[in-house]
């Protein structure tokens, strides 16, 4: 059970408009990065392979991409103010909630069926 007081705090720390994407989507995550005084936006493009925490304020999602032949995964907090937006490029037809099996696959086998 979550106390009412905590519910209220969580609501404040949640985004006004929730990000919309599904597991298996090819996404471009726009992340704000601060370097000294300057702020710039970096894009992390990849496949959403997992999302944890449902609709909670603490929810996260995992994006996987192959960068220079090396698999890279990043876990983003859904409600982080650093995340500007998430663009969905492609959706896929998937049969499970966590696509961890992609970690074992490379090349053509690591593709997902288009939705």
């Amino acid at each position: 059970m979550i106390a009412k007081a905590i519910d209220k705090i969580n609501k404040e720390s949640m985004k006004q408009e929730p990000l919309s994407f599904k597991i298996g989507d090819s996404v471009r995550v726009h992340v704000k990065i601060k370097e000294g005084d300057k702020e710039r936006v970096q894009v992390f493009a990849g496949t959403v392979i997992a999302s944890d925490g449902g609709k909670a304020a603490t929810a996260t999602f995992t994006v996987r991409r192959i960068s220079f032949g090396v698999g890279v995964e990043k876990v983003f907090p859904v409600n982080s103010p650093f995340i500007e937006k998430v663009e969905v490029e492609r959706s896929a037809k998937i049969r499970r909630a966590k696509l961890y099996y992609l970690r074992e696959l490379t090349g053509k086998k690591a593709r997902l069926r288009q939705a």
Partner: protein
Amino acid sequence: MEGLIGKKVGMTQVWDATGRQIAVTVLEVGPCPVIQVKTAAKDGYVAVQVGFGSQKPHRLTKSAVTRYTQAGVAPCRMLHEFKPDAGEAFAVGQAIDVGMFDGVKFVDVQGVTKGRGFAGVVRRYRMAGGPKTHGGHSKNRVGSIGARDLPGWVEKGKRMPGHMGSVSRTTQNLTVVQVRKEDNLLLVAGAIPGPVGGVVFVKKALKKG
């Protein structure tokens, strides 16, 4: 005022000014009505006795109920004394709220840890225990508790199985993240001792300003 009585509501996370994630403990602190003001002249020391929470009068003795009625305060579940800061004056019946932590950067939180019951040494003192594989027969056992002939007895203070938890502990120098006066809430970074709903004493940090 040195501190106030509060209650652990639970834990969650907030974003700080730079957008970083901080794990916070939410504490319901105050409002604490003043029951008695102790003075050096009358009591030999200076303190302010405050209450917290509500208590049904029939659960208290008649003399205790009278104390509350004389102070003009509803019966409280918890009573505790705190030292007032120099130059501060409090009147009986006046309620002190979480606003006193405005501008305070660090606090110490004292609570009663979760009771673990009768616990073995592996859990209680993080001893290694015996081998878990290769047919180990003593995975969670104490092992040797001393030599045989010298000194010929078990040393005093030897760590052995026994009751664990349910003791008062203080976590020091917790960063105050937010003071929410409208809800009487105090958000501190990190964990504090005790279960959700446990009563805690929140004080201004002793070692850090």
